[in-house]
């Protein structure tokens, strides 16, 4: 059976950062990803990131992705694409379907799960019509394949994904007829909302989608106002002629592999639902299984990269590639950057939720 010191599942911002740090410290690292290209969602992000100089603020996501990928490869980590992990067995034996569709069993000393998150769906009459898709799918079409799904789009959801993808549809030459949000307030950053507002996109809070219609594909949508308990208010319907409805109603951690490993989970609605409990080192309740990025609770790419670094350093240290003392210093630097990202109105609840998760881990291990 082929052996590897550290297997990283997922070549997005968290997985690549983990691989880069561990390889830099001398660990033998293999990264597998089921997609054709590495980078996860990073290469779709054409906007400039927030943060400080230490977080590469002011740099566009795809540029951060290119540098990260280059560094990871240069450090000697091996990246296998079109490669699926279908199972993880006791003692960290990993079942893999390789790019040439053959089967492989791999023995890993440490596993870092950086599988990301999946977009939530929204059910409404007509929601299966072609042209109705997740905002992430629209972003892939527009920014990777350079295809505008339709010239008129209705966006559902006002988190940063809904706001940013709306802006990118405008940049691609499309119209966003409206952005609809059931809550009384916009979920994402005000500055992102302001960009699309001055471009003429109406942001309709306290509205939800009632139905979509069309024969062979979506041709229009009806939206309706909701009251304080999110009940539709009859007579407030509005019609939009659109060829695409984009759904940006949040993300759920993709944690199936952690579940297969027997990791203990906790439920944190504001971080996306069920997620594996982990320590400050990003280690789950199963020794040798680490997690990083959105699988640990949905945040954003800058934090995902920092969590990846933590997991990479911790796994390499556990294998003896670096002294505990040096590893602690390195991790402290990462933690200081993470703590900065988890501040303010949009970050405080993440800091609190993550603190709780780590306390749960401590309680479980002590008992």
């Amino acid at each position, binding site marked *: 059976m082929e052996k590897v010191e550290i297997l990283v599942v997922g070549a997005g911002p968290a997985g690549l950062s983990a691989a880069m740090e561990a390889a830099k410290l001398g660990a033998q690292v293999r990264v597998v990803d089921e997609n054709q290209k590495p980078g996860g969602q990073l290469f779709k992000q054409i*906007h*400039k*990131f*927030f*943060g*400080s*100089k230490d977080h590469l*603020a*002011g740099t*566009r996501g795809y540029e951060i992705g290119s540098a990260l990928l280059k560094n990871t490869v240069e450090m000697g980590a091996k990246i296998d694409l079109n490669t699926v992990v279908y199972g993880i067995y006791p003692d960290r034996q990993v079942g893999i379907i390789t790019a040439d569709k053959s089967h492989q069993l791999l023995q890993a000393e440490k596993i870092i799960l950086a599988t990301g998150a999946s977009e939530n769906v929204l059910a409404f009459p007509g929601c299966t019509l072609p042209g109705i898709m997740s905002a992430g799918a629209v972003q892939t079409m527009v920014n990777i394949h350079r295809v505008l799904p339709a*010239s008129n789009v209705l966006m559902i959801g006002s988190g940063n994904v809904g706001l940013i993808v709306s802006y990118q549809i*405008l*940049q691609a*030459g499309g*119209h966003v007829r409206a*952005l609809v949000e059931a809550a*009384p*307030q*916009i979920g994402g*950053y*005000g*500055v*992102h*909302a*302001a*960009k*699309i*507002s*001055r*471009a*003429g*996109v109406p*942001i309709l*809070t306290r509205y939800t989608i009632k139905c979509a219609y069309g024969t062979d594909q979506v041709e229009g949508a009806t939206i309706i106002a909701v009251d304080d308990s999110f009940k539709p208010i009859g007579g407030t319907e509005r019609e939009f002629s659109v060829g695409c409805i984009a759904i940006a109603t949040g993300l759920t951690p993709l944690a199936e592999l952690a579940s297969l490993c027997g990791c203990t989970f906790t439920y944190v609605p504001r971080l996306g639902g069920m997620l594996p409990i982990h320590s400050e080192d990003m280690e789950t309740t199963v020794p040798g299984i680490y997690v990083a990025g959105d699988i640990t609770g949905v945040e954003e790419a800058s934090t995902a990269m920092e969590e990846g670094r933590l997991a990479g350093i911790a796994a390499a240290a556990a294998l003896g590639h670096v002294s505990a003392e040096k590893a602690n210093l390195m991790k402290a630097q990462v933690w200081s950057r993470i703590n*900065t*990202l988890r*501040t*303010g*109105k*949009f*970050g405080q609840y993440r800091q609190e939720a993550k603190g709780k998760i780590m306390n749960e881990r401590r309680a479980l291990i002590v008992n």
Partner: protein
Amino acid sequence: MSTKLVTNGYLSDEEMADLLPTQARLQKGPVGVLECIQDIPCNPCEQACSFQAISIGKPITSLPVLDEDKCIGCGACIPKCPGLAIFVVDCSRPGEMGTVQLPYEYYPLPEFGQIVDAVDRKGFLVAKAVIDRVNIQDHTAVLTILVPKAFVNIVRGIRLIGGDRDE
């Protein structure tokens, strides 16, 4: 905090009141307007300024504060703001027209001398404007547009041009 920014997506006149330069400062020359009112951990604007006119300090979620005496309105901060929330306004030129410098990340770019529709924070038409300068830095263009002086604190964009957008 329930503001127009979080319920509707744009800063209202009331929310803008404290952020806008005084008439006296506008007469003196170009000056920045930082339309940043949420405590996001972010500070590239502070480092973008060669004149130390913008301070955020610690914690990084503090809102940027502009020293209007130090600001020369160069606009170096405009393309550095990830939120595209910085503008430069000026009413010091003789005549009726003032200028607004604004970030613009759409193609096609307008050309020097082109007449465009200037819009407010809600995207509503305010006046016709003339493109005075197009300066591209790291894929973010900074447009300098000429608008009547009465509108420099209101105009924050131009109606998107080109393609099927004109319909």
